[in-house]
């Protein structure tokens, strides 16, 4: 059955793109969760609605249209927190509300919800093209390369931003790079799990990994493994019992989180 499942071109495409964005989101998510910025993915995903609506209105590619829209929104969140001293969660809420309302307005102007828009809201991993797979591969190279090269600056900024500044680390640049790369990851993820569930890919695997890891490098590796495994298992289960793949991927992630929590409790109870 698995051979049959993997023989389809659209399944190969979907799994490749899903694995690549899952790995990118897991790595980025670790830093966002530790910086208490995990909901930024949620805010950005809501802004995707504006990007997708504009793309459908102008008959352009939703992915290419959403990347600049979400990037500008993510910079907006940063500016609101830095310049206007608004709390991060409030800034995310403001930008998120703006993203949804503008998106809904444009959708209404072009005749309301249609099947294509719904496929972006709930994900359609099996419609991913090989060009999009190449984009996802580029994203992963950028994320892993960037993290390895700037590992010390990024961990120092996430752990203690004022101190990192006194080491000469340009913390503002690190934060900007982190949210811009995350905005690209969010856009490339919306076909995999859908606009509504993107933030789960950024949050759940890192949180699961944090529960069962002792070192920072362990957290990064385990988050990637949990995330990629959830895509494969989720897509396979959705293929088996005909359910939406995005929802299946997130449910597998939630089961993984529950498993990590139970394991943590068991480990603590047995003093290991």
């Amino acid at each position, binding site marked *: 059955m698995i051979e049959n499942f993997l023989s389809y071109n659209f399944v190969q495409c979907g799994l490749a793109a899903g694995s690549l964005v899952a790995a990118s989101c897991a790595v980025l998510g670790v830093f966002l*969760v*530790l910086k*208490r910025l995990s909901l930024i993915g949620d805010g950005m995903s809501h802004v995707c609605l504006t990007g997708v609506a504009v793309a459908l209105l102008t008959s352009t590619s939703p992915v290419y249209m959403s990347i600049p829209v979400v990037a500008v929104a993510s910079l907006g969140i940063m500016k609101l927190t830095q310049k206007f*001293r608004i709390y991060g969660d409030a800034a995310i809420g403001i930008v998120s509300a703006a993203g949804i309302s503008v998106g809904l307005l444009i959708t209404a102007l072009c005749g309301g919800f249609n099947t294509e828009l719904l496929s972006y809201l709930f994900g359609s991993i099996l419609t991913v093209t090989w060009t999009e797979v190449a984009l996802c591969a580029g994203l992963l190279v950028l994320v892993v390369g960037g993290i*390895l*090269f*700037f*590992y*010390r*600056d990024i*961990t*120092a900024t*996430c*752990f*203690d931003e*004022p*101190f*990192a*500044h*006194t*080491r*000469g*680390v340009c913390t503002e640049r690190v934060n900007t790079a982190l949210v811009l790369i995350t905005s690209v990851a969010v856009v490339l993820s919306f076909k995999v799990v859908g606009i509504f569930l993107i933030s789960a890919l950024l949050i759940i695997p890192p949180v699961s990994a*944090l529960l069962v*890891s*002792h*070192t*920072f*490098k*362990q*957290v990064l590796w385990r988050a990637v493994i949990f995330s990629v495994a959830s895509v494969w298992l989720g897509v396979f289960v959705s293929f088996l019992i005909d359910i939406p793949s995005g929802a299946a991927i997130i449910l597998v992630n939630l089961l993984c989180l529950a498993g990590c929590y139970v394991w943590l409790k068991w480990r603590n109870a047995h003093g290991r």
Partner: protein
Amino acid sequence: MPSILKAEDVCFSYTRATVLDHISFDIQSGDYVGLIGPNGGGKTTLLKVLLGLEKGQGKISLFGTPLSEFKDWQKIGYLAQKSPVSQTRFPISAEEVVLMGLPSRHGADVSRAELKEVHAAMQQTQTREYAGRIFQDLSIGQQQRVLLARALVSKPQLLILDEPSTALDAGSRDMFFDLLGRLNKQDGVTILLITHDTGEVGKHISKFMYVDKNLVFFGTKEEFCHSPEVAKKLGPFAQHTIDHLHNHHGHCPLGAACEECKHD
């Protein structure tokens, strides 16, 4: 003595409230300055502005270089008032935290030389035994000592410390201030320290800076302790500090050198 930290007309305000109002001073090499003042007087904000963590107005120079052009951050060790502990369990060892104090460079690997420096700094603050433990699993006092090791690991020429002893027990506090005293006297490290613990630390401090939005006083310990005019000008808080300096452990912090106390 060369100027290490110079501030000219430094001002800072949040949206409506003025926090720092035209503060100017010059800290020279080898000074051990106690920065004191009432709560809300702007002491912590002043340190943040001096380090560029908050953007204020006025001129600041570090080691003779304007703050905006300053690059030799390894010359400065900084210990903040609050430990960077959050509810999220950051899975990083005490050793890795101290490593952050070394000059930043690319890559994730740690060299043997870097590890040696980290262990030496941890030895200084008696935290070597916690090297492999998760930072967040340590007590607040142990964390504070690890953070001091992080501030010392780059062998700084200027230490800027914001109430570092608040979470420490009596033994650790003595170790802490003795270490700072040694670094100042033996290695010539310049220290700027916010403290309310003027009794113990008063033994080592050479100058006092009193900030209450304005720079109310900046001078030697002798001037501070034995000037009735200063005490009168500074009000009850300063008088309390001076009394504390005199009464702590039942003797004057200036010791035998104090001319005034010989006449008491």
